[in-house]
């Protein structure tokens, strides 16, 4: 299909205001009479709160409210974490607004203050007297699973959830294997470290509606906030701002409940913005995993069996752990055909920071493990990294380990070949103690939510009388171009230039709900809803124009704000003329369309079978690293990525997503380590938690494959989260290639590499 706007790398309409710094992010907003909030946080990772005395804080001049758990109407909720479908208790957990009795992690919110200034609020925090009784806590998920382990919460077990996959007979298969590789891998907590910390302003409007202007990935949390306050859902309005990065860290509720409580209590506008360090303390992390992998193959390099056990540290609360674990379970075998597979996964509570969504959502951790395993197998069997993958990768028509069919396109072979071959001929080592190495990794991840969540999105389009277009969508734009994609789709369908379209986003009371900007679902879901809305309006325009032009409906096209006869291009009508005629005839040109994702039943057993996801995105990374043998320092010299994106609605944006995922994963592979010792944070600022800087990352070369076989608009697949696959294992495999050591725990610091090399020499 020929397109004129879709498929073009056009600048995002929000790019200029962002570049100029004039866009109003969450914190760039104030109201007259506004108070400032601060949060008192637990000093201990595990403790019993004996008493909280707020009297001194309340009497400080300038303090307007001090609230603790007992002031929260509904402090403990069984939460579905933003999900509107009823999916049963296995996917729910406790959402506790403010800690009462048992404190579960360091930095857990205990009390809220609203005051005339941030400074007074900060002073008031110091005047809240909390008496704790410290408890032993448990900080290792394996320890936490033991019979007599310390209990993190109020249940009689620390187990959050467990899943299994059973395919064939691994025991027999391993006996027939010529080669077996067994390793245990581990990955640490990872912080989202978005540029914009959590922030929002809340007020009570003239109709008594609690209104919260906040940076979030999920405006649908308005329902939970209403339940916390015990007021009707329609009495809370969330206005989502442009978001300065989310990556899953703004998927759970952050400041919304705190703001709602304080504005409800004081009847004054309230602002709450976290500092960077508070942000580190307050929000979720990517789950640390311990992953035991046993992989068997024939001497020809064909995989025969995989047995794996994944243990995820959920930290102090459930949040999205069951979902993340399910993703990890389904992705555990990777994009390979393995006849015999046994997967056992478990998520466990500890007194560590809580884990929840992080871009990659459980697919990324096993990706590091299974791609390391493939690389080791290739080395033992003397196969090159590409060959072993081509021998085993999924092809069109293959099924997932759960038995589900893959729809669309399974382009593992193509992406692996293209990425690897793009590296070109090998170079000689540049210096005597600098060794070059290359690594390849592929990856798979779904886009769109778990199919049993029965996902929906709505989108609204209206044509104004002058031919301009107004769109409304609840879509939160995280900076990834979510809104731009919808505008490009409307422009494509209606033949209207981008600048004549205005989109209003992210308002629970005024925009149709588009669902969450998570799960790589917005282009797929809201893109399809927008396409549907645009085509509905278009249909009506065509009907009218065909009468006006006395043309057959199929003989009309939309171009440059005109409806043109294809057979006689000099016969056309201005779009505004047709709109005007429709209006005169009483036909308002608007449409609100809903797109429904394919739906499956909620799994009833912990053995996962059948379809859990609608479609997958496949991609590959090939990298070249240079390692200083004397210091263990790694430099990623080259990185090539190739993904089947189905259709690039905006290729510039897709490249940006791939580069961003790549840079994020360089940090995962080499520098980012969120250290938690016995529940205490040791990397609580950006001086200790090290993101790669512009000087630490190479130019990332991107190759886009457009199979057109995705289930998004125009055959697009989702790319946001899958882009975090493959880079980290490709780097680790390249290190193995360069200096002969296998790093099994991330990050691969120079310290680890150097001493692994030295112990190998001994």
């Amino acid at each position, binding site marked *: 299909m020929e397109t004129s706007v879709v498929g073009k790398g056009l600048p995002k309409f929000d790019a200029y205001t962002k570049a100029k710094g004039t866009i109003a992010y969450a914190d760039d907003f104030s109201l007259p009479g506004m108070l400032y909030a601060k949060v008192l946080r637990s000093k201990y990772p595990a403790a019993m709160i004996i008493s909280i005395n707020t009297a001194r804080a309340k009497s400080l001049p300038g303090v307007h409210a001090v609230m603790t758990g007992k002031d929260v109407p509904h402090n403990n909720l069984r939460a579905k974490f933003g999900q509107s479908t009823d999916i049963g208790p296995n996917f729910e957990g406790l959402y506790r607004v403010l800690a009462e009795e048992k404190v579960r992690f360091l930095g857990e919110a205990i009390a809220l203050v609203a005051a005339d200034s*941030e*400074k007074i609020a*900060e*002073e008031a925090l110091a005047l809240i007297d909390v008496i704790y009784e410290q408890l032993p806590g448990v900080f290792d998920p394996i320890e936490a699973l033991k019979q007599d382990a310390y209990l993190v919460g109020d249940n009689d077990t620390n187990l959050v959830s467990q899943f299994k996959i059973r395919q064939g007979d691994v025991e027999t298969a391993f006996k027939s294997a010529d080669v077996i590789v067994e390793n245990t891998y581990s990955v640490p907590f990872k912080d989202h470290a978005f540029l914009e910390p959590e922030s929002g302003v809340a007020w009570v409007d003239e109709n008594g509606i609690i209104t919260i202007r906040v940076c979030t990935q999920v405006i649908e949390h308005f329902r939970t906030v209403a339940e916390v306050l015990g007021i009707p859902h329609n009495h809370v309005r969330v206005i989502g701002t442009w978001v300065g990065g989310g990556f899953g860290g703004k998927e759970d509720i952050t400041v919304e409940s705190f703001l709602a409580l304080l504005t409800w209590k004081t009847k004054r506008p309230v602002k709450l913005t976290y*500092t*960077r*360090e*508070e942000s580190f*303390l307050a929000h979720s992390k990517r789950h640390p995993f311990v992953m035991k992998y046993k992989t068997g193959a024939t001497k020809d390099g064909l995989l025969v069996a995989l047995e794996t056990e994944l243990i995820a540290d959920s930290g102090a609360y459930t949040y999205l752990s069951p979902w993340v674990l399910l993703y990890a379970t389904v992705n555990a075998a990777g994009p390979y055909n393995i006849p015999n597979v046994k997967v056992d996964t478990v998520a466990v509570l500890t007194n560590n920071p809580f884990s929840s969504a992080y871009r990659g959502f459980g697919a990324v951790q096993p990706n590091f493990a299974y791609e390391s395993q493939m690389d080791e197998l290739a080395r033992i069997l003397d196969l090159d990294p590409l060959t072993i993958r081509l021998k085993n990768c999924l092809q069109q028509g293959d099924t997932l380990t759960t038995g589900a069919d893959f729809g669309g396109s399974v382009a593992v072979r193509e992406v692996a070949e293209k990425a690897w071959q793009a590296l070109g001929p090998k170079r000689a080592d540049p210096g005597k103690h600098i060794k070059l190495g290359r690594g390849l990794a592929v990856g798979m991840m779904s886009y769109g939510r778990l199919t049993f969540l029965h996902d929906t999105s709505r989108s609204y389009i209206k044509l104004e009388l002058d031919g301009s277009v107004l769109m409304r969508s609840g879509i939160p734009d995280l900076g990834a171009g979510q809104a731009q994609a919808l505008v490009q789709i409307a422009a494509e369908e209606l033949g209207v230039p981008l600048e004549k379209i205005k989109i209003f986003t992210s308002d629970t009371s005024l925009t149709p709900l588009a669902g969450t900007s998570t799960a790589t679902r917005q282009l797929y879901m809201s893109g399809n809803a927008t396409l549907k809305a645009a085509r509905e309006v278009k249909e009506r325009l065509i009907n009218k124009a065909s009468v006006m032009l006395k043309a057959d409906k199929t003989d009309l096209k939309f171009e440059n704000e005109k409806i043109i006869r294809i057979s006689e291009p000099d016969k056309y009508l201005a779009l505004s003329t047709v709109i005007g005629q429709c209006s005169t005839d009483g036909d308002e040109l608007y449409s609100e369309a809903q797109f429904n994702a394919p739906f499956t039943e909620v799994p009833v057993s912990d053995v996962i079978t059948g379809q859990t996801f609608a479609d997958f995105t496949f991609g590959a990374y090939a990298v070249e690293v240079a390692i200083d043998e*004397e*210091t*263990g*320092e790694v430099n990623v010299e080259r990185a090539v990525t190739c993904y089947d994106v189905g259709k690039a609605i905006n290729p510039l944006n897709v490249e940006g997503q791939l580069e961003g995922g790549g840079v994020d994963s360089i940090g995962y592979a080499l*520098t980012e380590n969120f*250290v938690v010792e016995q529940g*205490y*944070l*040791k*990397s*609580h*600022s950006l*001086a*200790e938690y*090290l*993101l*790669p*800087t*512009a*000087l*630490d990352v190479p130019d990332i070369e991107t190759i886009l494959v457009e199979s057109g076989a995705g289930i998004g608009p125009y055959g697009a697949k989702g790319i946001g989260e899958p882009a975090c696959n493959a880079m980290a294992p490709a780097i680790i495999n390249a290190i193995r290639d360069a200096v002969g050591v296998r790093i099994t725990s991330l990050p691969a*610091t*120079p*310290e680890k590499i*150097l*001493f692994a090399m*030295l112990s190998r020499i001994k």
Partner: protein
Amino acid sequence: MKTNTKILASEFEYLECPTLAEALNCLSKYNGKAKILAGGTDLLIKMKSGLLQCQYLIFVKKIEALNYLISDKKTLRIGPMISLRSIEKNEQVKAYYSALFEAVRSMAATSVKNMATIGGNLCNGSPAADTAPPLLVYGATLKLSSIRGDRIVPVEEFFVGPSQTVLESDELLTEICLPDLGDQIGSSFLKLGRVSADIAKINVAVCLNRTGKSVGNCRIAFGSVAPTPIRIPEAEEILKGQEMSDELIVKAAKAAAGLIKPITDKRSTNSYRQQVSKVILEEGIRSAWQRAGGEL
């Protein structure tokens, strides 16, 4: 754990001193109760984290008389309030004081270097201060002034321990002076960080003179391996007066590695620091030697 609240929570009086005399008077008047604010890139973080309180904050960065970099043919005099960025951009520094240039180049992001001063970097007293090893190997002296008068302290005697220097509570660092380094001189600075523009896991500076094929004078200094930046005289002695060779470099570097006793902290481990100290010192000696016109 102390958290940076971005709020200067404790009350203090802010004094802006446009002249040196006023600054010294203030320091004397509020002896012991005042802190000196230069670029603020270290101090303000400590204050916002509640690690440091003071009754008076004396802002000295605007004292024009302390913001200069003057080099005659042989010596270099640096006003301590000059920004790291200005030092990095100075052509004289780049051409003749390679170790100092490489040190400031390796530090922080540009925006931070526009704020931060060399005087602040030294007086903050961090064992990892990147400007310290170069000044140690150049044999720099520091002028410390108070209303009681001036005194000159070799930079080697300036550092006492982590965040501790010999600076008295009424004193201000007013000049950094690099002496005549002689002819055929070469210097270098190397650092290992975790990412670019990071605080050093370990850093090293070397400065030496070449007489023909032999090493003349030589100084070696490490940062981030001891409570203060330190010189390693034993390793210097191995090089001095000897004909330069790869073996000699290895010998000196090995000796140095045996003498340092680094610790394990957030940034690295003692064993890694020990291991790589010889690597970066070898590289540092080679580079300094070549800059002095020597061959290897």
